[in-house]
């Protein structure tokens, strides 16, 4: 079978403030085939697809189509070149109907003014027949299940007669039957010569549907070949590399008594079901427990339950044996829990406030007599933590938004540490920061653990979880699906436990 190359990236580099998301990648996209893209969260898959779809522009490098260089200034440009993308996060207008959503921005009109609803409806009906879904064109999107919404998103791309179709985790919200339908549509598109890029974390699914596979790690392509002969161990090896990166060396210290315990923590999901499904775990003083899992596995939600963000969460928790009854965030911080949130920009920092004000926000009581804040003491406290965490700042009065990602993260960590916590919850502590800052953050975590803090951290980076954790807990679909000691954990076993199983035992997926 011959599959011509429809689009090439040559020497593609993408730099964001504080981090290089893509490092001089060469990528061939073949037409009439499924090009599978795999890698851990943050490996650069989504960045590469955003570049192809015109959402982001390359900092360096070229994109070629039919041997001619093309520049996509926006999604419109890419669309004119026949490129369609279905994002992982759905981009639909919930209050509009299915037909309106499918034709948004390219409405079929009479004379450029009057929308021809009848033609749009008919076209929508044909698309839905093709996708074997019985969705009425006039249904508001908000009334559809998430899986159906994903179908609408796919239909939107099909309606544009895309020659290249990028699907970013299209099956994450689909049922098994819907996945089969999607695969049939993909096979049909392949026959028509459409080049498909398929991103997914479900390895067995990739092997089944893919014709070519490209593996990304830390912004570089570590493996690219035809799918024939590829197996799960090959993918895993390329995803995480042969040798582990040199993280800060272990300082051995004995663990203390149990410092935190959670029992039967449940959190209902908005669309029904449980986002956190009867999670129980315990943590000892001085222990670093890594929680590994894919996006949407309920890891962040669990940490949010612990800090008290979700008032309707159920279950019991205890700090050093004392039950934790206070449900407010302030009360839990006072009892010695601190959270470093995943979304630094929206949850971690007040962007327009100064570095000093951000750092002390959780611990102003330390600098307050009665109701009067002693600003000198506050400045001294901030200076101490700036030094301890080696935050690089010009002045502590500058807005925190002027800092790079790594330094912002250190400010968030400083804020948490200033509350003198017993239990530190860290949600993706290394997200969006460069490798140097990462190493410093990890070193800090080690030091804190040696001082007797219990640390519970969430990550999607397998290497990180293997290198840093004293114990690894794997979550999938809201449940704990595996627990490994440092000694017994293997990468393959951890990945297998993290795979979404839809009720099937984890072993079957890898076999």
């Amino acid at each position, binding site marked *: 079978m011959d599959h011509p190359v429809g689009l090439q990236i040559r020497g593609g580099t993408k730099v964001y403030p504080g981090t290089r998301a893509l490092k001089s990648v060469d990528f061939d996209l073949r037409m009439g085939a499924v090009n599978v893209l795999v890698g851990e969260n943050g490996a650069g898959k989504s960045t590469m697809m955003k570049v192809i779809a015109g959402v982001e522009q390359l900092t360096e490098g070229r994109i070629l189509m039919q041997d001619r260089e093309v520049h996509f200034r926006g999604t419109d440009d890419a669309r004119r070149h026949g490129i369609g993308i279905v994002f992982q996060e759905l981009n639909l207008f919930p209050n509009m109907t299915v037909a309106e959503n499918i034709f948004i921005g390219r409405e079929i009109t009479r004379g450029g003014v009057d929308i021809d609803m009848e033609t749009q409806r008919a076209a929508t009906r044909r698309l839905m027949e093709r996708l074997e879904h019985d969705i009425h064109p006039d249904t508001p999107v908000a009334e559809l299940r998430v899986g159906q919404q994903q179908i609408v998103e796919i239909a939107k791309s099909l309606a544009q007669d895309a020659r290249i179709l990028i699907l970013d985790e299209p099956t994450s919200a689909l049922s098994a039957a819907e996945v089969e339908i999607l695969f049939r549509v993909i096979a049909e598109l392949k026959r028509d010569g459409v080049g498909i890029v398929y991103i997914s974390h479900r390895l067995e699914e990739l092997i089944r549907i893919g014709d070519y596979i490209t593996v990304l790690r830390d912004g570089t392509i570590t493996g690219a070949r035809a799918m024939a002969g590829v197996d799960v161990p090959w993918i895993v090896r390329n995803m995480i590399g042969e040798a582990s990166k040199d993280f800060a060396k272990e300082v051995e210290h004995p663990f203390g008594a149990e410092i935190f315990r959670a029992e039967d923590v449940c959190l209902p999901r908005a669309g029904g079901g449980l986002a956190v499904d009867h999670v129980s775990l315990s943590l000892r003083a001085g222990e670093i427990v890594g929680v590994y899992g894919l996006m949407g596995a309920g890891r962040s939600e669990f940490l949010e339950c612990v*800090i008290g*963000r979700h008032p309707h969460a159920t279950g019991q928790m205890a700090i050093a044996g004392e039950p934790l009854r206070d449900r*407010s*965030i*302030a009360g*839990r*911080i*006072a009892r010695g829990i601190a*959270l470093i*949130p995943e979304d630094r920009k*929206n*949850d*971690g*920092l*007040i*962007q*327009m*406030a100064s570095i000093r*004000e951000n750092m*002390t*926000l*959780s611990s*102003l*009581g330390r600098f*307050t007599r009665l*109701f*009067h*804040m002693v*600003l000198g003491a506050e400045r001294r406290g901030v*200076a101490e933590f*700036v*030094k301890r965490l*080696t*935050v*690089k*700042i*010009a*002045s*502590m009065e*500058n*807005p925190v*938004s*002027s*800092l*790079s990602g790594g330094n912002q993260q250190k400010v968030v960590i400083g*804020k948490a540490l200033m*509350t003198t916590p017993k239990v530190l919850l860290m949600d993706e502590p290394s997200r969006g920061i460069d490798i140097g800052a990462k190493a410093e953050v990890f070193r800090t975590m080690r030091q804190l653990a040696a001082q007797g803090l219990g640390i519970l951290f969430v990550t999607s980076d397998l290497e990180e979880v293997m290198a840093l954790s004293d114990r690894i807990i794997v979550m999938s679909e809201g449940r704990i699906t595996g627990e490994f000691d440092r000694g017994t954990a293997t990468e393959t076993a951890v990945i297998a436990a993290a795979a979404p199983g839809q009720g099937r035992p984890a072993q079957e997926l890898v076999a």
Partner: protein
Amino acid sequence: MSHAATHPPTGAAAPNLGLLVLKARTFIALILVFAFFAVAAPNFLSAANMVIMSKHVALNAFLAIGMTFVIISGGIDLSVGSIVGLCGMVAGWLVLYGVDFGLGWSIQFNTLEICLIVCLVGIAIGAVNALLITRLNVAPFIATLGTLYICRGAAMLSSDGRTFPNLNGSAEYGSESFRQIGAGSLLGLPISIWMLIVVAALAAYISRRTPLGRYIYAVGGNERGAALSGVKVNRIKLFVYMFSGFCAALVGLIVSSQLVASHPATGETFELNAIAAAVLGGTSMSGGRGRIGGTIIGAFVIGVLSDGLVMMGVSAFWQTVIKGLVIVAAVVVDQAQQKLQARVALQAQAALGK
């Protein structure tokens, strides 16, 4: 590496003249407006005019101080003008009739008690605003728009739309000093100006030197982030709306005392002047940014501008147009300042290297 962290590099932190001018723009505007009218309007600088003008400014300044806290916290309070009206009516009612339970006798209050009750009414309305916003999730704009109508209607109902005249009080009940709130003076300054000084100093202190103040800024800057840092967001909102209600109640008291009468339509569109003063003083409508000092200067710019134009005999219609232009210009300049400020901070950070 770490030793450099706490020392600002001298080159990058050198004062930027352009930024300094932009930061002090409202103050510069005030001086310019003042200088202009001192030349253009006869008697503008006379002591009598200064006292009259500062009394006018004070009314708006009270409301603007309360409004500043609300806006910094990310909200808006449209009900203050109506609270002024309603509180004025409550004050008038208490001076004239006291509280009558229909049992053939009534309770009469002295001046201090009247002031306390009126302030409590204002604070209670603010609390209702806050509860609507925090507990029932009504958008601040809509919640306070609702209380705007409710309070105005209640003020009208209290007297069937008529004025309560002759609020001279009576010596028998200890309320004869009610007039002094608006007319009295201490050490040559009107009582209302003294009250303004106290309230402004208190508000400035809260905003700069108490955790409460810090939390108000944090809630407006990023409500989710503040909540996750342990800030009790609902309590902070409760405070800002109650404080705004309290400020409005003070204005209600002062106006009815100055006029020795209370009219139910008092305070209409006062909320807009208060918002204008806050914005002119550099308060960001999206929350998280603003200063009490800036707001007071903003209130003075608006007050001096309108009184000066009156003295020059400019028509009321032109006054309104000029006021609008000044506000728009202020916000445009504010945006320029934000951009420049961000660039200076980024440059300082870049000078540090990676």
